[in-house]
């Protein structure tokens, strides 16, 4: 059986075709203001690059902030439910998933069947989200793909203390004016993200086996700082962590 997951996130929209444990294909593109009308074409592109046709798909599950924008789905599911399903399937021993997306941080506590027991989410404020890193990276002249490399050259600790991304931008610029180095500041930003994430994680309870998903999980410099400060055991997410929700959506499509 082949199922299709669609994750219409705040920054990126992802589509993924799943057959058994095999990802038959996936597609990622920026979420635009017109994403609703672009989805059909995106699905066609995904099918053709995977050598499949519409009739091969048994079910379509939509998720993400814009899940309602796709009318052709068999059903929509909350993204944290999809992420929990993906964690359960790929990492059965893990009960806690920290999902850091473009515009949200979500901590998900799940049970043995992948059911969500509790979750906490900040999607009201950019603090600690992917956009926070992007805005501060841009202020420091460091593109997203170079964050890890630049942070790795840091020599000393600088605390970026402002929570608001807009005000933190002024804070880091004032540090640059004072002569602080870009690598130290990028590392400071990564540390600040980790602190914001951890303050949410600790509110949900003690940490045992955990994993990190969402686009921000790709930043080694942030995951390392989470590992340093959290007691539990970290399990790297076995597939691209940015695809966790869309993978989970495709998995849930099988249950229909």
């Amino acid at each position, binding site marked *: 059986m082949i199922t299709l997951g669609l994750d219409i996130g*705040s*920054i990126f929209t992802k589509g993924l075709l799943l057959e058994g444990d095999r990802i038959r294909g996936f597609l990622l593109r920026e979420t*635009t*203001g*017109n994403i609703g009308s672009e989805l059909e074409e995106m699905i066609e592109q995904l099918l053709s690059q995977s050598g499949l046709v519409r009739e091969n798909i048994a079910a379509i599950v939509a998720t993400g902030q814009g899940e309602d924008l796709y009318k052709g789905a068999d059903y929509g599911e909350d993204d944290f439910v999809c992420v929990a399903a993906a964690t359960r399937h790929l990492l059965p021993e893990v009960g806690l998933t920290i999902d850091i997306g473009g*515009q949200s941080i979500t901590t998900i506590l799940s049970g043995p069947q992948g059911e969500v027991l509790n979750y906490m989410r900040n999607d*009201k*404020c*950019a603090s600690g989200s992917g*956009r*926070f890193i992007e*805005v501060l990276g841009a202020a420091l002249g460091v593109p997203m793909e170079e964050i890890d490399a630049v942070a790795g050259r840091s020599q000393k600790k600088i605390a970026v203390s402002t*929570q*608001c*991304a*807009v*005000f933190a931008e*002024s804070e880091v610029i*004032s540090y640059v*004016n*004072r002569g602080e180095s870009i690598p130290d500041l990028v590392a400071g930003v990564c540390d600040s993200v980790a602190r914001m994430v951890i303050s949410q994680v600790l509110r949900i309870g003690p940490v045992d086996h955990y994993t990190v998903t969402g686009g921000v999980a790709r930043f080694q410099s942030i995951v390392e700082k989470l590992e340093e400060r959290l007691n539990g055991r970290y399990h790297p997410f076995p597939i691209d962590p940015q695809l966790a929700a869309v993978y989970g959506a495709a998995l849930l499509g099988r249950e229909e």
Partner: protein
Amino acid sequence: MYFGGIDVGSLTAQAVIIKNGAICSYHSIRVKPNPVDSAKTVLEAALAQKGMQRNDLTFTVSTGYGREQIQKEGLSQENMSEISCHGKGAHSILPQVRTIIDIGGQDAKVIRVDSGGELMNFVMNDKCAAGTGRFLEVMSKTLGVTIEELGPLALKGQNFIEMSNRCSIFCETEVHHFLQRGVPREDVAAGICRTMAERVHALVRRIGVEKEVTMTGGVAKNPAVRKELERIMNVRLLSYTIDSQIVGALGAALLAQQLSGVKK
């Protein structure tokens, strides 16, 4: 006798010189990295306009960022909080005012004063850019207009867009999406100014409003935000003739005059 007031904000710095309680010179600059440098530059520019020097000032009060350091460097003889200075300044130009909404570059304050201009209570937001001048700055940049152009553009808007976010960064993404959908810029601008007014109103509600009400700080210059705020609060915002950004520095100068008699 001349008295000086220096107010260093997050984006701009102002100096006001008064004689017999009336403004005789003032100047405003974009801030420098160091508040002491900003204070020195802006004060000297205000003095130079009248061919004056620092020792022509009997007493000077500093307020805003680095107000203590500015005093330590000898540019002022005393420093006072922005709240006191804004209260004092607003009361001097509008004695009937009881609520002052001061929206600066990186903070928002609502100040309540009594009939004598004495501070009764205040609330402040300096943790989140929503509802501060920075929100409008970020939004103007996203729309591709200057901060001065935003208000007039918004007044032309017919259909206000509705923002579903509060965070300035998320609103930036949202504005991009509206523009990609072909929504007219004036409608987006109108929605931005309405969202701004709603954030300011949320702060005002925490302390309550007593008439009369006025607005100070840079954002007071945005006609669309004023209009929306008047609609939401159902009050008329009192206007005045001096630059809304120098109210704090004027208050500082007036306090300098008051203090000079006490402290010598």
